[in-house]
């Protein structure tokens, strides 16, 4: 009996990510959710700009590649064109929390019935390790070589907390993929976000804390430890908003 195999919603294309980069795990979790809900045939994905720019090569579903930060707007157009389709975006922190903040906030405020997978690894990976909107205070990057100085460049953006304040947001949860337990929780959250969309329950966003061993200058295992020790304290895991669960409880 097969206990674990590659999900069908992933193509056979080898992932281009660096060794130990957890983008691959998150891709797999998205694909597992698509398989488990049996929605591949009606799912349309929106790839963004950043390390995950090639996402359209990896998911076995119709895909469109959006300009930097614009994925939620493109997804809005796709969803409004045919609300029976399941539409998701896959975006990194630079794409979603910096250049695409307006598109993110307003898609959430509209309660757009889409699923956003937000990969937060606190750095710009594709361009070679610059400071991201989510880089931690003091974090050394190519463009914060003396460490992120919050007095001059400001503070990191906490997207889940921010979106949770909007009435339009349906479901927002922060998860991590640095160990088996967290990956399993992340899987549940991502599947729930897609299920919510199939039920017409509005905007959901799953923020996934992810590693970037290459640009963090760590080993893959060291990166998972760094995430545990540095990112999770600043970006606490958990459900930040679950409108329907809250309403059901009332």
């Amino acid at each position, binding site marked *: 009996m*097969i206990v*674990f195999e590659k999900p069908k919603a992933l193509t056979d294309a080898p*992932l281009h*990510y660096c*060794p130990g980069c957890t*983008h*691959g*795990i998150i891709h*797999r979790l998205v694909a597992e959710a698509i398989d488990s809900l049996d929605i591949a045939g009606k799912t349309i994905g929106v790839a963004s700009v950043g390390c995950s720019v090639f996402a359209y090569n990896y998911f076995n579903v119709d895909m469109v590649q959006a300009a930097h930060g614009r994925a939620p707007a493109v997804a809005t157009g796709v969803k409004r064109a045919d609300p029976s389709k399941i539409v998701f975006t896959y975006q990194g922190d630079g794409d979603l929390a910096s250049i695409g903040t307006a598109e993110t906030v307003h898609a959430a405020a509209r309660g757009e019935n889409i699923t956003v997978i937000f990969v937060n690894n606190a750095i710009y990976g594709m361009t070679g390790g610059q400071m991201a909107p989510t880089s931690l205070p003091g974090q050394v990057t190519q463009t914060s070589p003396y460490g992120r100085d919050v007095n001059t460049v400001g503070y990191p953006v906490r997207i889940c907390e921010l979106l949770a304040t909007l009435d339009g947001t349906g479901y927002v949860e922060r998860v991590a993929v640095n160990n088996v337990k967290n990956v399993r929780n992340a899987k549940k959250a991502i599947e729930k976000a897609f299920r919510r969309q199939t039920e017409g329950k509005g905007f959901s966003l799953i923020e996934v804390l992810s590693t970037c061993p290459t640009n963090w200058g760590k080993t893959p295992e060291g990166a*998972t430890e760094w995430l545990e020790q540095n990112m999770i304290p600043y970006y606490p895991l958990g459900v930040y908003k679950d409108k329907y669960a809250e309403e059901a409880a009332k």
Partner: protein
Amino acid sequence: MAKVTFEKDLCKGCGLCIAACPKGILSLSKDEINQKGHHPAQIDDQSKCIACAFCATMCPDCVITVEK
């Protein structure tokens, strides 16, 4: 009988599976080099495997299939 197989040529030798294995029975091959130029992960003692799939859960490249 628990069985773990690796699609070796896709492995990038990151070692996340090794760190996740509760039985400590995975390692990177010392002498083998795959198509990508990495030392791929391998199982040293299949008989001790409990098919927990922790390794596959942490593998970013879907290299691992677990059977029981």
